[in-house]
């Protein structure tokens, strides 16, 4: 089922939790909604489920307006963050509950329960109460319960956040496998960018009530649209500056750290515009041999070195006071010490020119 959010707002009194949300979740997709806590992603999910009223805008399922439809009529399967398993019902009863509310023959109900318990590998636990299950098993019951009704849309609200690291990896694979098997349109909400990057094909990033960017993981990482996403997905160095000159895709930015040339495909900024420059710590190269040249060459003072085996982290500072972080993989033997001056370089295609960092708003 295709889900479309059209100019959706959610307000609680004076505060706007979701601001002008436009989003299409394609039929059969495993779509991720990613953002820090309090960004409005759970509110969005709950509006989709019908557990929260939409203040303004429209919500479409396969082209039909369901904005005013109550939760009970939407055919949603939801996995809650705390699983919300009914503690007084066995695994079987938990799964059966949603089916019994539907006009199904008892044979059909039985078959469906067997199917979902099989797909979630819970068959041997049917008679257990939720309290007698491990965290991972509870999670699977929640998933089975949601899947049993063959929902139009499956909603997963931070489904892995209550599991330990090892189980999390296992459950990721489980969810991917089940999604592939069932082909149910799924919206997956998480604050963990690694979870989204590793599992998602399409990821929508929300920040402070605004949906900022929807893309595949690589594009999000390589071409974040705002300084916020650049910093939220992976690490980055953000420097505020001004466009000095531009020539087609080549753009020159003046910053307190130095002058940077960038090759920019995503957005256009006129000469004189305030911008921010994003440079990934691993994209910056270090001038080990002190040649003192190269494209985008700049000099920084070493503040702190952290040796981590496969990589070494350099915490540097420009004469203007800007902190810059560099991650160097397989760093050679060197004798830079704290207080030394070090030369750095970055390729123009690794310099991202983004809108300036402002207070929270559509441009952030």
């Amino acid at each position, binding site marked *: 089922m295709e889900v479309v959010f059209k100019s959706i707002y959610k307000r609680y009194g004076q505060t706007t939790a979701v601001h002008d949300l436009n989003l299409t979740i394609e039929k059969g997709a495993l779509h991720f909604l990613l953002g820090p806590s309090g960004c409005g992603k759970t509110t969005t999910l709950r509006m989709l489920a019908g557990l929260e009223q939409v203040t303004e805008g429209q919500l479409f399922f396969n082209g039909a307006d369901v904005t005013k439809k109550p939760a009970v009529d939407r055919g949603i399967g939801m996995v809650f963050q705390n699983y919300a398993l009914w503690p007084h019902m066995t695994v079987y009863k938990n799964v059966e509950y949603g089916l019994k509310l539907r006009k199904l023959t008892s044979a059909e109900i039985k078959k469906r329960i067997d*199917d979902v318990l099989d797909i979630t590998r819970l068959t041997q636990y049917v008679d257990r109460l939720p309290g007698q299950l491990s965290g991972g098993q509870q999670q699977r019951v929640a998933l089975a319960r949601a899947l049993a009704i063959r929902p139009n849309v499956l909603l997963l609200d931070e489904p892995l956040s209550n599991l330990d690291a090892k189980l999390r990896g296992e459950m990721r694979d489980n969810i991917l496998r089940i999604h592939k098997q*069932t082909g149910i349109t799924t919206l997956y909400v998480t604050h963990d960018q690694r979870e989204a990057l590793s599992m998602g094909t399409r990821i929508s990033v929300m920040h402070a009530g605004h949906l900022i960017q929807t893309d595949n993981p690589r594009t999000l990482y390589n071409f974040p649209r705002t300084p916020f996403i650049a910093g939220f997905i992976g690490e980055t160095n953000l420097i505020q500056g001004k466009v000095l000159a531009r020539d087609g895709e080549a753009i020159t930015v003046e910053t307190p750290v130095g002058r940077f040339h960038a090759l920019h495909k995503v957005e256009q900024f006129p000469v004189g515009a305030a911008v921010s420059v994003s440079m990934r710590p691993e994209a910056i190269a270090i001038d080990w041999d002190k040649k003192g040249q190269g494209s985008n060459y700049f000099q920084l003072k070493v503040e702190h070195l952290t040796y981590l085996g496969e990589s070494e982290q350099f915490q540097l500072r420009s004469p203007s006071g800007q902190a810059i972080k560099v991650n160097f993989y397989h760093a050679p033997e060197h004798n830079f010490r704290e207080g030394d001056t070090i030369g750095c370089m970055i390729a123009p295609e690794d310099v991202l020119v983004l809108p300036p960092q402002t207070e929270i708003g559509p441009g952030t």
Partner: protein
Amino acid sequence: MQTQTADETSASKRRFSDIVGYGTVIATIAMLFFFLVLPVSTIMARAFFNKGEFTFRYFPLLFSNEMLMHSIGNSLMIGVVTTLLATLLSFPLAVINVKWEFPGKGLLMGLLLVPMVMPPFVGAIGLLRFFARRGSVNLALLDLEWIDAPIDWLGPENMFWAVIVLEVLHLYPIMYLNLSASLANVDPSVEEVATTLGVPKWKQLKDIVWPLARPGYFAGAIIVFIWALTDLGTPLLVGYHETIPVQIFNMITDVNENPVGYALVFLVIVMTIAFFLLSKLALGSKKYEMMAKGHVSSARRRANWFSLPLIYLLVGGTVFLALVPHIAVIITAVSNKWFMTILPEQYTFDHFGQVFQTSLSLIGIKNSFIFAGLSTLLDLILGLLIAYVIVRRLIPFPGLLDGLVMIPLALPGIVLAFGYVVTYSDTFLDPLHNPVPLLVIAYAIRRLPYMVRSASAGLQQMSPSLEEASTTFGASRFHTLRKITVPLVTANLIAGALLCFSYAMLDVSDSLILAMKEKFYPMTKAIYVLFLEQGSGELLASALGVIGMAILAACIMGASLLLGKKMGELFRS
């Protein structure tokens, strides 16, 4: 699993159950209006209006009547002295409960609660027997030659203290429960910090523990005060007639000729509200958010050879004192030929046999079970729905509904009963013809707070997502309530129901006032009427009282087993 069609749920069935659900909520509010707001406002209106004209003339009548002024003063004194003495008695008990560990603690602390469920007016019967001019106490003292002539314990000058003793012994558990809960809520680490800073123990209690526990204390204290102020049964049986409740009781019969009754009841309402607000605003308004819940077990001290005897003496002594009146009732009930001796010469169970042969007591037992049962059922339904609406915030300003429902906790039974009589006389609900509907409703309304609190406690512990999960599957709110919510709060509901039932079984003020014909007498009124009878009436009344106590004790034990520590939170305003 390839299809993606969500199956349709039965829409019409769902709409129907939603209507049932919302209808019940509306009925609840209507009920609270007609049987709580309306009677109280009627009294207020009649206290000021005479034949449609606004008047103040009843109040001068009130204040110029010397006996009424005495009654007001006496009742206020009963309230104040009872509250003070109950505090003095229960503070050390609460500290012992929270801070000390000793063998037999569970049993002893449980026994401390028993007096709460022993109706003081039944205890009064026993006390009268023990302290009569020729009663056991005087005879014992004469035997010991400590006194030369019998002391008139219950003479007019001592009646006040007789009432006070019975009230304190009945009400201290409420104070004790509240203080214990408040003290236990104080995170022990805040005291530990003070200890590391070198603050002495007594100063910690005064500067840190007491301010944090204060709101809980006043919540309990105000209940004790109002209950003592407005208790009808005890002064009535002791014969201390110059008190507000007894005066109101006497005025009921000629309420249409003598409007002073309205003014008196109005005064009680004003006093109740005033003291309530005073305790809320001036004394206990600030609530401090505890950063971490107390995990008191780690901070408990083991009693040593020095403190253990003291603790046993204090707790055991209190339990003994509190049970003396009821032990006296039991002895009276099984006594045979008790005359001019300290204890009866012979014992017999005949009186219990007679109880079951006397029509009055049989009617009383039967009626009480029916009335209390019906009112508990009503409480169960209303309490659950109200708690649900409040906790899940289904209406705007749920706090208002919460406040409304909690009023009966502080609203004296005499006020409500009086209000029913004046509001519903000459209507189809007239208690003169058939008091059963009003009695059941009065019982239910007055015990509704326990049910609401009990159900709320359960609902608050339950994650709303358990219900939301059910909603996403297409279940109506009503269906979800039935299948998910109720099973998960069953323990709370049963505990609340047991409390409601037991308090309804031994309700005094509503029963004495509303039940006017013998065939509608509940047990309490039967006890009262038997007690007034000459001959063996007192013995029968005692036996009936013992039966009532046994029923009540069984109910409360069940409730406390189910509720555990949460008992303390039920008796808070």
